[in-house]
């Protein structure tokens, strides 16, 4: 009998002990999920605030934010001007870090391949069908490329990674821009689709002769080869934290909504992009405590939290990007009060 009583007490204690802990709910991009996971973990151990983030995809994050079922969203694709106006002109984009989309492939012997924008476009357009195609062979003279069919792998689900990649393709290939354009989901001419970055990575690893686009983090964790890509300044760039940071060393707009692909930066990796946290600029519909906690979180993510990025192979914000993030966070208000003024340090 006493054991039962004890169990009941501890059960109740479990429920109520957590009763005054705030839980923030967020949803969105899969790309930064490993980083956000680590960040929120760390944040909880320091500040005892729980964050429930579900990686349902960039578009999902936007939609749930608009439906107000989550407290913040996350996306690799920024909301267009048109849509921003449609939603009421009240959503802010806070840049958190920068990611690289790499071309990963499965070739016998794992050679280090160089690719140009033309070659990449033509592969995904289905015009270059074999690995030993003269265009590829010419710029990779030291590698014996096999007479093997190229199997293209792309995303099956809507994704910010796809958005960054197709944004790049649209900039470097007129044919691509005209026929297929850029988006989170597009009408791929050829290839297999797989769900999420891990899905694409998985298929690439399994299918000999395949090539696909994935975020750098996933390529590194899965020990996969990825290509050096020729950038706007005719340099062959290896994707890395460094080259990705360089890509962001350009003039950034005040609201941070900018595409980093095909960057002008000389040593920048050409297929890079920001990932943002999305929030309303006016949090008056939430309770004040929660609104304050959100701003605390955003500030922490763009400052102390940044040190978690590099060890996980994400490029942290450059000083320029960080100061823009600060300006944006300072716009968030609650009943005409700027929440940043009462931030907890």
């Amino acid at each position, binding site marked *: 009998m006493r054991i039962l009583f004890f169990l009941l007490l501890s059960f109740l204690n479990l429920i109520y002990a957590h009763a005054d802990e705030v839980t923030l709910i967020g949803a969105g991009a899969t790309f930064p999920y490993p980083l956000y996971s680590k960040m929120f973990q760390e944040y909880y151990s320091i500040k005892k605030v729980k964050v429930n983030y579900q990686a*349902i995809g960039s578009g999902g994050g936007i939609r749930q934010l608009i439906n107000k079922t989550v407290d913040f969203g996350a996306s690799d694709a920024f909301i267009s001007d048109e*849509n921003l106006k449609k939603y009421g002109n009240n959503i802010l984009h806070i840049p958190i870090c920068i990611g690289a989309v790499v071309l990963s492939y499965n070739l016998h012997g794992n050679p280090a391949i160089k690719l140009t924008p033309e070659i990449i476009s033509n592969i995904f357009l289905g015009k270059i069908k074999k690995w030993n195609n003269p265009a590829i062979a010419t710029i990779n003279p030291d590698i014996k490329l096999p007479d093997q069919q190229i199997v293209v792998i792309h995303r*099956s689900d*809507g994704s910010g990674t796809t958005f960054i990649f197709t944004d790049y393709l649209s900039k470097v290939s007129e044919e691509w821009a005209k026929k*297929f*354009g850029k988006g989170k*989901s597009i009408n791929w001419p050829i290839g*297999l689709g797989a769900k999420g970055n891990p899905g694409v990575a998985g298929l690439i690893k399994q*299918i000999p002769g395949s090539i696909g686009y994935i975020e750098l983090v996933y390529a590194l964790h899965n020990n996969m080869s990825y290509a050096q890509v020729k950038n706007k300044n005719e340099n062959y760039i290896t994707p890395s934290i460094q080259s990705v940071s360089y890509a962001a060393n350009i003039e950034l707009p005040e609201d941070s909504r900018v595409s980093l692909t095909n960057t002008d930066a000389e040593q920048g990796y050409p297929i890079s992009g920001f990932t943002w946290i999305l929030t309303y600029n006016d949090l008056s519909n939430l309770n004040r405590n929660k609104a304050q906690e959100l701003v605390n979180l955003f500030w922490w993510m763009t400052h102390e939290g940044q040190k978690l990025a590099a060890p996980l192979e994400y490029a942290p914000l450059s000083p320029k990007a960080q100061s823009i993030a600060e300006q944006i966070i300072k716009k968030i208000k609650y009943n005409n009060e700027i929440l940043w003024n009462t931030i907890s340090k």
Partner: protein
Amino acid sequence: MEHNFKINKDRLYFRVINISPYFLIFLLASIYITLFIFSYPAIKQFGLSFITSSKWDPVFNKFGSLAFIYSTIVTSILSLIISLPFSISLAIYLGFYKKEGKIAEFLKTVIELLAGMPSVIYGFWGLFVFVPLMRNLEIKLGVLPYGVGIVSASIILAIMIIPYTTIISREVISLVPNDLIEASYSLGATKYETIKNVVFPYSLSGIFAGVLLSFGRAIGETMAVTMLIGNANSIPQSLFGPGNTMASVIANEFTEATGDIHLSSLFLIGLLLLIITSIFNLLGRVVINKFKIEG
């Protein structure tokens, strides 16, 4: 007094039982109406071309679902054909030959476990164990070694839907009255002939119910299919090639679809799925009514 009380309870009983159908009607009506409302924009914009066109383009907002309809029907029918010999055999074995005993109990448990296996696990097992085998086969056959594709998805689907037919069929087969079976034996029939002429016709409606259950599962299965079918939004060139089903494309694109027409088109696919299922079930019902034997 006691007499009246009992009649009242009976009246309550009948009232409750007779109201229940309206609950289901309300549910289905709500489903149809909700889907229709949300797919209306797509219906208005594309009309019949939604069914005849296989172009699915979220960037230029042109949507046609022919490719998905095709792959959905192909994979469902293929998986059903593959699964039937196995599920019916097992149902006959457990419902007729070995109704009792340790082996029977064991097999029943095994089948119920198969039914309870989450679809994601089928997906992963399919992806990591089955697909490489399929790939080797494809290399031998000289086709592109995708591994994933229509055939792979259909085979794993077949494994998934076996339990549904088996469990229900076994149950109805085992409930065939013993006196009918004994009567058949006493007339000199072998077990095979008894099964063919007595057990089967008697339990046909129940077996068919199990088959429909399996078919419904196959049409609507999302997670395992989406991992194994290759997710190419076009009509498959061959059975070994990739395709995409209606349920899979909804799962893939729903959370991301922020464009209104894109979202509406996905709802329309959901509505079409509902309509296709309705048609198949209507046909099925006609067949069942022809074969039903009263007990």
